[in-house]
């Protein structure tokens, strides 16, 4: 088949619809990735304007430019937009756009989930921006410490905007993390074993895994604070058994890994771009992979260094100080790998390399001040001063913006098919670099001279006048730099010279795609035999375009790509991806209705919105699956594999695993909060402890056992093709699960204390709610499978859906039992009281 004919066939299958309908129903990873990056760029510009206003206010002592109320909103929104609306979504967008191209896949594992995440991000951002335009923006700082953010001290809607808007956006981040993890592990070109993966994919994989476990503590914290503000449940109120430090623990359990979640993708860009710029393969690939993993783990052991000044015991200070210092080691391993690669290669100071050089300088300074801040005595000295502001900007701008700009310039030809003007790009770099250092280098001194953070004004004569003025001038220079960069890219997109297919002579797969990339990426998928697939295979792009690789023919108008065995990269299934759909945008709108109902206090509407979300999720699941067995299908190169419905470890299975990991982290964070309050909280023991109920425990345990056995029987019957027996067994499992939930509910209604009187009651009610919500979800899933068996979507070969539901059922039952034990434990044991 000719390349042109194949392109025509695939384009019809994969392209989005035209017009506004296409905008709303598009699920293509390239389009969504670009949307994320552009929207994040817009938020960066807004955050940048807010920064200019902050610097204008601080340029001179006793400034009357803005008052304290507006100033509080400015710095809160600046931090929140930059962290939640710019940094994370930007690299998500880059990963969404690049990963399938780098891995040799046609799309991400769950295209509709990507689209759903996009709409959640957009709508969540609207909530924040609208509030800001109305003067109701959050004003408690980007980390929203309690009690300042509690109802007593922030009585208006401002804090609710943050808690609900950011949580809405976090839904998007969680979706992206699961999507990316499964894509990297499962959707690669055949032959691409773990050891042959592009290094960028390793960085993004570890980042996504960190997000899977990093975001739930923040979502929990926001949920608890919103419940406290809305209904008066005292999680953080020390007068009723709560503790404001719980907020700090939960926030920084997310907040510190967040720094590395932002840094790692940027380091991935450096590890990808630098070897191309120095014409030398990355040295120490294995050690770099090891250090990425180590960094990912160690970054979760540092959160308390944000709380060194809160009066925690010395041993805890020492544990976290050691961890905070040690995390520099895996970072430095990567730094030495980059230096060695440069040493062995022939560096060419082209624009991406210039930004990487800027990264080295700035990030090194940020890293060194980070080690200084890890030392407790120094940390105490500069706590909450401008020194910390300077440090975090060196880490985030130096460690994220500079590498990302290197990536933007490196991949712009891939993205747009155009090249930028080198002179304008260099001018932009020098303005940004000079302006950045003028702003923040001197800010270390301002902090050491004692100027606190987040003050809207200061008196003259304290030695802060000149440093502040220099910082303000520097920040405006930096802004000119960013404006020049935007003009440069805009001119390139409009009038730039056309780029050749592989302008940097790189060896990774994304450069084998046509320019610009078609919706299906690759007309056929390559067989990968090395870490540099394009190295010495110059005709690969043309060969793939002619359909000479895997899946070189379209089949039944389906969107197909290949799923692989994780470690070896051997082809294991054909993954059939869903097409354009209204479901993502409609589901995100319904979820937005839930958040808006909470924001405006229309609480009766919130469950209605959730029911609509549930109905849409059901519809979502109904549109998936297959109603006939196909067996192994030829994929080219003499190989044949089954479609994913008939595979054991399909992407949907792994998606469920990682969704459950997220869920379990949320639950573990809740249990941590419970234990923390019980051990440290003031006003404990509570006035009344829950008495363990033998009756409830017996009913719950026996009903759980029946649910397990019935599901087991149903699963086995479905596996034998006995539809009626399977449906009956799943219905029994539904009834047993209902009994479990009922026992838990009755136990709560009869035994739990009021959630408003004491934090003990509040936490136990939240745990009970967690168990009941999961019971409802598992119930819907069991009912769904029973129906699918009846309608022929499950067969002995197609057992994916029962397998997924089994996972959720087991988790739900374990969680319910754990909830019961956790609630009853303090009453059963004499505890410390």
């Amino acid at each position, binding site marked *: 088949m000719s390349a042109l004919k194949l392109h025509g066939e695939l384009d019809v299958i994969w392209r989005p619809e035209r017009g506004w309908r296409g905008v709303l129903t598009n699920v293509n990873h390239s389009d969504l990735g670009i949307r994320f990056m552009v929207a994040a760029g817009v938020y960066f510009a807004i955050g940048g304007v807010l920064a200019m206003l902050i610097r204008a206010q601080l340029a001179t002592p006793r400034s009357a430019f803005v008052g304290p109320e507006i100033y509080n909103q400015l710095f809160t929104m600046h931090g929140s937009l930059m962290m939640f609306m710019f940094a994370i979504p930007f690299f998500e967008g880059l990963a969404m756009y690049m990963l399938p191209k780098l891995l040799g896949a046609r799309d991400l594992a769950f295209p509709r989930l990507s689209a759903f995440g996009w709409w959640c991000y957009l709508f969540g951002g609207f909530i924040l921006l609208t509030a800001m335009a109305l003067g109701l923006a959050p004003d408690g700082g980007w980390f929203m410490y309690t009690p300042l953010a509690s109802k007593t001290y922030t009585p208006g809607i401002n804090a609710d905007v943050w808690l609900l808007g950011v949580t809405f956006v976090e839904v998007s981040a969680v979706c992206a993390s699961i999507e990316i993890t499964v894509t990297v*592990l499962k959707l690669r070109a055949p032959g691409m074993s773990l*050891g042959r993966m592009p290094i960028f994919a390793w960085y993004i994989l570890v980042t996504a895994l960190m997000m899977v476990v990093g975001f739930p503590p923040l979502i929990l914290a926001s949920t608890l604070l919103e419940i406290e503000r809305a209904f008066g449940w005292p999680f953080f109120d020390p007068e009723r058994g709560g503790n404001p430090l719980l907020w700090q623990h939960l926030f920084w359990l997310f907040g510190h890994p967040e720094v590395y979640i932002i840094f790692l993708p940027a380091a991935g860009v450096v590890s990808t771009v630098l070897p191309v710029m120095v014409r030398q393969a990355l040295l120490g690939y294995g*050690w770099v*992979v090891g*250090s990425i993993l180590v960094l990912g*783990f160690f970054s979760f052991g540092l959160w308390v260094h944000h709380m060194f000044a809160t009066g925690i015991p010395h*041993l805890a200070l*020492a544990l976290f100080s*050691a961890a905070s210092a040690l995390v520099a080691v895996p970072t430095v391993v990567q730094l030495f790998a980059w230096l060695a690669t440069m040493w062995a290669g022939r560096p060419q100071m082209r624009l991406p390399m210039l930004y990487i050089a800027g990264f080295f300088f700035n990030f090194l300074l940020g890293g060194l001040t980070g080690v200084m801040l890890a030392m407790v005595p120094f940390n105490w000295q500069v706590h909450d001063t401008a020194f910390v502001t300077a440090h975090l900007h060196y880490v985030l701008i130096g460690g994220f913006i500079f590498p990302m700009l290197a990536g933007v310039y490196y991949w712009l030809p891939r993205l747009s098919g155009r090249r930028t003007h080198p002179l304008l790009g260099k001018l932009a770099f020098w303005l940004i670099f000079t302006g950045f250092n003028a702003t923040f280098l001197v800010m270390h001194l301002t902090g050491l001279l004692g100027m606190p953070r987040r003050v809207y004004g200061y008196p003259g004569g304290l030695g802060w006048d000149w440093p502040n003025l220099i910082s303000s001038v520097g920040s405006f220079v930096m802004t000119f730099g960013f404006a020049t960069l935007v003009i440069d890219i805009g001119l390139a997109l409009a009038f730039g010279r056309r780029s050749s297919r592989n302008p940097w002579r790189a060896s990774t797969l994304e450069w084998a795609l046509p320019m610009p990339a078609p919706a299906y990426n690759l007309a056929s998928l390559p067989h990968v035999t090395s870490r540099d697939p394009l190295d010495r295979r110059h005709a690969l792009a043309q060969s793939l375009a002619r359909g000479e690789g895997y899946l070189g023919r379209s089949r039944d108008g389906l969107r197909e790509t290949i799923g692989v065995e994780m470690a070896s990269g051997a082809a294991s299934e054909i993954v059939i991806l869903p097409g354009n759909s209204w479901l993502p945008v409609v589901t995100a709108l319904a979820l937005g209705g839930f958040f808006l109902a909470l924001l405006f206090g229309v609480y009766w509407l919130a469950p209605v919105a959730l029911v609509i979300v549930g109905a849409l999720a059901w519809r979502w699941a109904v549109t998936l699956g297959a109603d006939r067995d196909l067996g192994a299908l030829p994929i080219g190169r003499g190989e044949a594999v089954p479609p994913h419905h008939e595979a054991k470890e399909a992407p949907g299975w792994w998606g469920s695993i990682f969704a459950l990991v997220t869920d379990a982290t949320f639950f573990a964070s809740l249990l941590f909060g419970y234990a923390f309050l019980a051990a440290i909280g003031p006003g404990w023991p509570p006035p009344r402890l829950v008495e363990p109920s033998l009756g409830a425990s017996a009913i719950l345990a026996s009903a759980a056992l029946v649910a397990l056995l019935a599901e087991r029987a149903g699963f086995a019957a479905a596996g034998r093709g006995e539809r009626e027996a399977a449906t009956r067994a799943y219905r029994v499992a539904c009834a047993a699960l209902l009994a479990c939930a009922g026992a838990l509910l009755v136990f709560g209604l009869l035994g739990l204390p009021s959630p408003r009187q004491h934090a003990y009651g509040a936490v136990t009610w939240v745990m009970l709610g967690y168990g009941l919500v999961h019971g409802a979800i598992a119930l819907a899933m069991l009912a769904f499978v029973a129906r699918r068996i009846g309608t022929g979507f499950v067969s002995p070969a197609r057992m994916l859906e029962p397998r997924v539901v089994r996972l959720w059922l087991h988790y739900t039952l374990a969680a319910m039992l754990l909830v019961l034990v956790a609630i009853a434990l303090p009453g059963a044991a004499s505890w410390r009281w």
Partner: protein
Amino acid sequence: MALVMRLMVALLLWAAGFSALYAVHGLGCGLGWGDRPALPPFTLLNLVLVPLWLLFLALALLLLRREARRRDLDSRPAIRRATLAAGWAGLLGLVFMGAPVLLPAHCL
């Protein structure tokens, strides 16, 4: 997935050890173990935390030794190096981050 887990197992052990030390420390201080002399001059909290730390160190050492002796990843040198790097990091991380449990005062 087995290989991915093998890459991470030493670091998961580190995470478990670090969490266990911090959790037992918090609970021990809450329960007054830091003030309760058990085997003078050691407190009850000393006698719980130090053996716990040593237990995790021993486990990390065993894991690393086992990984270093295995030869099935010799054909995938990059993954072998990454596994060894993670193993060493798990062990040294536990040594360095857990060493403060040797300090005499825990709950000040």
